């Protein structure tokens, strides 16, 4: 290379091309994304988080929760489960079939064969689509995370390291706000062996006034404040919990289909 201009040109070409590929193109493809709808339904998805939960994301950011938690469930693929919804008249034959046939984790064709056999015997069946993969089996979600889930989030809390469990669906997994507050105050008290540092600075210990506040934490004996005092979550703690509870990826989408639990429970 003879001159500096040529080096600048080379750099411009190399970095410019990747800029177009990884900055411009995703922005063109995803930057104008709009709400979509839940699969087989007219419900809009995602819904804007509530005010508290939106503020909670900022507490999540400021505390650096994403240093240890991801918010992206992954899946290997999908499988079909054949679910019996009605036994019909020929009870013995159907129950015999159900106990002998493999009904879970099937391919589409296998599921068709199985449901055909049971239908012939008079049973009523449904074929359910389920996501598969380690994250799904760990109960971290019913499907993988997809682009739609993050439409309203800023900053993007995807995370890259799982020192703690994935939180993409924590609102559906652990929906108890009190449990969440207690877990923030003293993680080891509710999750034995947890490595999470306590976030006690999100709480304040104060003197009980006329009557103890209904919001005060119900702490186990060894963590309880001295008599006459109570531990109150600050607004930040409440917002953070509101955000955590708003994290749910429990509806099927066109990109990530599955048969929701509501149907499953019918059996």
């Amino acid at each position, binding site marked *: *290379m*003879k*001159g*500096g201009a040529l*080096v600048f040109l*080379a*750099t*411009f070409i*190399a*970095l410019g091309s*990747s*800029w177009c*590929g*990884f*900055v411009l193109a*995703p*922005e063109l*493809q*995803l*930057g*104008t994304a709009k709400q979509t709808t839940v699969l087989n339904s007219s419900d809009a998805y995602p819904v804007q988080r509530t005010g508290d939960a939106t503020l909670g994301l900022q507490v999540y*950011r*400021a*505390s*650096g*929760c*994403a*240093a*240890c938690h*991801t918010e*992206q469930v*992954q899946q290997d693929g999908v499988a079909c489960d054949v679910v019996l919804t009605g036994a019909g008249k020929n009870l013995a034959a159907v129950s015999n079939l159900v106990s002998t046939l493999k009904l879970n984790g099937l391919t589409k064709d296998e599921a068709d064969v199985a449901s055909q056999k049971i239908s012939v015997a008079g049973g009523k069946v449904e074929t359910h689509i389920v996501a598969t993969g*380690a994250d799904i089996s*760990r109960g971290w979600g019913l499907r993988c995370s*997809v*682009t739609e*889930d*993050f*439409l309203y*989030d*800023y*900053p*993007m809390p*995807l995370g*890259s*390291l*799982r*020192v703690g*469990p994935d939180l993409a669906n924590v609102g559906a997994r652990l929906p108890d706000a009190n449990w969440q507050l207690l877990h923030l105050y003293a*993680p080891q008290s509710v*999750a*034995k*062996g*947890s*490595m*999470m*540092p*306590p976030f*006690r*600075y999100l709480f304040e210990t104060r003197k009980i006034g006329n009557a103890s506040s209904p919001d005060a934490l119900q702490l186990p004996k060894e963590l309880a404040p001295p008599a006459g005092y109570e531990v109150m979550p600050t607004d930040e703690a409440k917002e953070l919990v509101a955000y955590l509870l708003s994290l749910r990826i429990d509806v099927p989408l066109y990109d990530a289909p599955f048969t929701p639990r509501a149907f499953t429970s019918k059996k």
Partner: protein
Amino acid sequence: MIVNEISPDQLSTGKIDASCRVPLLALFGGAALWLVVGLLLALIASLNFHMPEKFANCPLLTYGRVQPAANDAIIYGFAIPAALGVLLWIFARLSQTELVLPLVPIVAANIWHLGVFVGIVGILIGDSTGYAWLEFPRGGSVLLFAAFLLIAISAVATFGQRKERELYPSHWFLLAALLWFPWIYSTANLFLVAWPVRGVAQAVISWWFVDNLIFVWLALVGIGTAFYFLPKLAGRPLQSHYFALFAFWTLILFSTWCGIPQGAPVPAWLPALSSVASALTIVPLIAIAVILVKTVCGANVSCKGGPFCYLKFGTTAFILSGLMLIASACPQISCVTEFTWFGPAQTQLQILGFFAIVMFGAIYELLPRVMGFELPFPKFVRLQHWLFMLGTVLLVASLAIGGIEQGLKLQNVGIAFLDVTQATLPFLRASTLGLLFLLLGSLLFAANIFVMTFKWKLALFKSVIAAVKAPLETAEVKS
């Protein structure tokens, strides 16, 4: 000593070195300080794995703040200013001219370190932007950007004054780095902080930025520096310029597309493209490895813990870190290593094992020339080399092995998540020990830099005093 430059007479070399003195001291002094601060913060963050209850009441020291603060202190506080100082000196030497606009980098260095200070404090009080490696709040980023441009102006002006028009391979790498950083830093700050784009496009831009900063930028500067110093230290010319040109082109063409994780919730073409680019990154890696081996082997120089050792270790670490990057972008491997400590291990190897060590080697080699006197503690150089080697190996190996084990266990659904994390604890604790060695090493580096600065200031002060006290020459005394 000087292989690549045409007949430099001793006097002008001395002048060139002297012209860099104050800017380099301003850059390196802050860099040494931030390295100590950064490693100290990293150690505090790591202590969370020994006693998670310790910092429960202190928001400033919670893991999620200290860890990014440590990362940023090391990369923005230490790595970039050290790189810019070395770059200015190499440019001045290669151009055979004194540093142009020497005042500008002095001012810029102070702006830069102020920006880092604003940024680190911002992260610790909870003002982080929430994007990895870009956590500095706006005020800090603006200062950094302005300071970088100022230094780049001085560097490019010096480059323009060069006597030998033909470019040396280091020129390509370092010039590219000068354009690279403002481009990626402004893009990331504009689209993620100032006017954030919507949805996961943010994440894609963030990954693009991180890859281009941590892998490409550090590689450009580190390898450019190694291509300058290794031939000098080995006493043989670079083998060869054409091969270096090939490595340069392939590096900037391929590795700038890496960095999108395989399972990310983004359109599938993005990780697929990134995976292909990562596989192709093997080409510049092999080219660089061949150049290094051909240049270094056969050199009849023993390194004795000096700069030559530093550069050899650092460049080897670069090859390893590149291989780890390629491995973790391969879908079959990434399904195990993703979301584990393997990723941080690769990043730490790149920053501390490769880049920091190459910078130490370069600084120890150039600083005595720039200052005009020897290092105050020459024995520290060897000791620090050992500490950094040991520290890096401990840190990176324990995180990498722990990460692979963590990944394998995460795939095995039979093992409860808490047991998986518990099993990583011994590895994390070993990595704390590695950080401790690194911190000790960085203290030795800081001692050398600061005592040197102090000695120089003392000498300056003495000469001023002497000039004031000196009796007037008789000719000037009016009768």
